[in-house]
């Protein structure tokens, strides 16, 4: 059966050109970039090509790009590294309630270490308020970390405006741009960011490679200690093949940004229109305009997300959900709760994220089948308009944690 992959926010297939770029670095060009002889030196040179490709993709200087083992590591490094280095100045950090766990759990860890963290709320669309941000800034605030674009609901935060406010106060600003790269323009000069995290596998590169942009002069401690790699800032023999792949993927992503974004947006709007017009009792999560070009996130009343995902999977469609039942921890998505959805509504969430290779036919197939799936599951559900959900059940559920 043909598979229709609509979970590009989770990961993307590696582009064949990217694979081609990467392969020689496992075999012919296997050298250690730290070695002084030819095998080492040639690879070292190649790494600088990749670094330049990444730098160009975000309008940075190549000397501001540091490769990491993942987007999560870049987030950890940015936050812990700034906190450790600057704690004499203050121990207050500002973030949001809708960050990726790589940021949220890092902040929670720092709270245990004596730091104070303000989690800015978001409105029903997932946007933070600039006034809230201004009010949250204190004398001892050392870091503001706010994601560029949300991985679940696709909302794009006003990063440039945030950057201006934070810069004016002389505070360091980090943004997790893992979901933004390849989808919207990312320009560190224009945005006033000091640190920015990106990841390879969301832009048709391999998994397990990321990078942190660190603006020249930003005081930060190391996270990974050891050898002198990455100009003594990130130890560990370089993941040469994947760095080369990431560089190529970033180059392709920025070269084709406009074309890809327009394609995704067209299909996303087709999907949203198809679902909203053909399925009753549905809501679109996230912002109507300020959203990633490939992101569609819905809540269907009266049904549960995992059963939607299973039904889609059977007919060849891959998607994801923020339902408690799919989370492993049995907690509903923190993002859906943060935009004010009751747990019972968050239960029926479905995220479909479009990619560069998604087609109109794919979207039509999804909409047609989704109509039937939702109808079937609703007929099976004990709750409906006359028999609404007993919120007591969910109260009980949240107390359980």
């Amino acid at each position, binding site marked *: 059966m043909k598979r229709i992959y609509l979970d590009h926010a989770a990961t993307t297939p590696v582009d064949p050109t990217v694979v081609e770029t990467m392969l020689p670095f496992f075999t012919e060009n296997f050298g250690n970039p730290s070695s002084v002889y030819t095998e080492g030196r040639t690879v070292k040179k190649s790494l600088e090509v990749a670094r330049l490709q990444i730098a160009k993709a975000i309008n940075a200087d190549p000397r501001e790009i540091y490769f990491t083992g993942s987007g999560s590591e870049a987030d950890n490094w940015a936050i812990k590294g700034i906190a450790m280095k600057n704690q004499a100045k203050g121990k207050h950090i500002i973030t949001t309630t809708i960050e990726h766990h790589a940021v949220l759990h890092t902040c929670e860890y720092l709270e245990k270490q004596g730091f104070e963290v303000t989690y800015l709320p978001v409105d029903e669309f997932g946007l933070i308020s600039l006034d809230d941000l201004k009010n949250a800034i204190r004398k001892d605030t050392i870091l503001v970390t706010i994601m560029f674009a949300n991985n679940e609901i696709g909302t794009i935060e006003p990063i440039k405006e945030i950057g201006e406010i934070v810069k004016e106060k002389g505070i360091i600003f980090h943004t997790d741009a893992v979901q933004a790269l390849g989808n919207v323009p990312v320009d560190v000069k224009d945005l006033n960011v000091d640190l920015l995290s990106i990841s390879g596998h969301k832009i048709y590169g391999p998994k397990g490679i990321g990078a942190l942009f660190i603006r020249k002069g930003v005081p930060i401690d190391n996270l990974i200690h050891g050898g002198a790699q990455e100009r003594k800032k990130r130890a560990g023999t370089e993941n040469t093949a994947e760095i080369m792949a990431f560089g190529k993927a970033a180059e392709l992503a920025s070269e084709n940004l406009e074309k890809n974004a327009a394609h995704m947006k067209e299909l996303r709007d087709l999907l949203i229109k198809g679902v909203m017009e053909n399925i009753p009792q549905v809501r679109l999560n996230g912002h109507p305009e300020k959203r990633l070009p490939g992101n569609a996130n819905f809540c269907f009343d009266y049904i*549960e997300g*995992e059963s939607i995902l299973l039904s889609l999977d059977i007919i060849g469609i891959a998607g994801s959900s923020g339902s408690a039942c799919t989370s492993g921890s049995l907690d509903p998505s923190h993002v859906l709760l943060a935009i004010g959805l009751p*747990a019972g509504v968050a239960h029926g969430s479905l995220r479909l994220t479009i990619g560069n290779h998604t087609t109109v036919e794919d979207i039509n197939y999804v909409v047609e089948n989704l109509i039937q799936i939702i109808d079937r599951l609703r007929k099976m*559900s004990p709750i409906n308009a006359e028999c609404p959900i007993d919120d007591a*059940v*969910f109260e009980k*559920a949240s107390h359980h944690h």
Partner: protein
Amino acid sequence: MEYTDVVMENFTCPKHVGEIEGANGIGQVGSPACGDIMKIFLKINDDGVIEDASFKTFGCGAAVASSSMATDMIIGKTIEEAGKFKNSDVVDALGGLPAEKIHCSVLAAEAIQAAIEDYQKKKA
């Protein structure tokens, strides 16, 4: 997480979905773990035998499969026999459930007990 073929069968083609007319025992329970809801309908005859059973479920694949399997298993049983019905009976019949999905089968067992209690209360 991996579901067995029996779970998937019972999810894609569940048996006994919907409400039965003339049900004289109805039980609804919510899961304190994830917030899901299951409703069981029983038609019990004068000899105390469950003639028919059906369900409505707002929940995950395991919850739907558990409801389907559980209702199928208790049809034909006396309420005494059904009173001894445990969630492990459903799990075994489904060929196992992932650890984090065991509570979904508990929901089925509890909904059946609630439906039997409802019947007994109405009768008394």
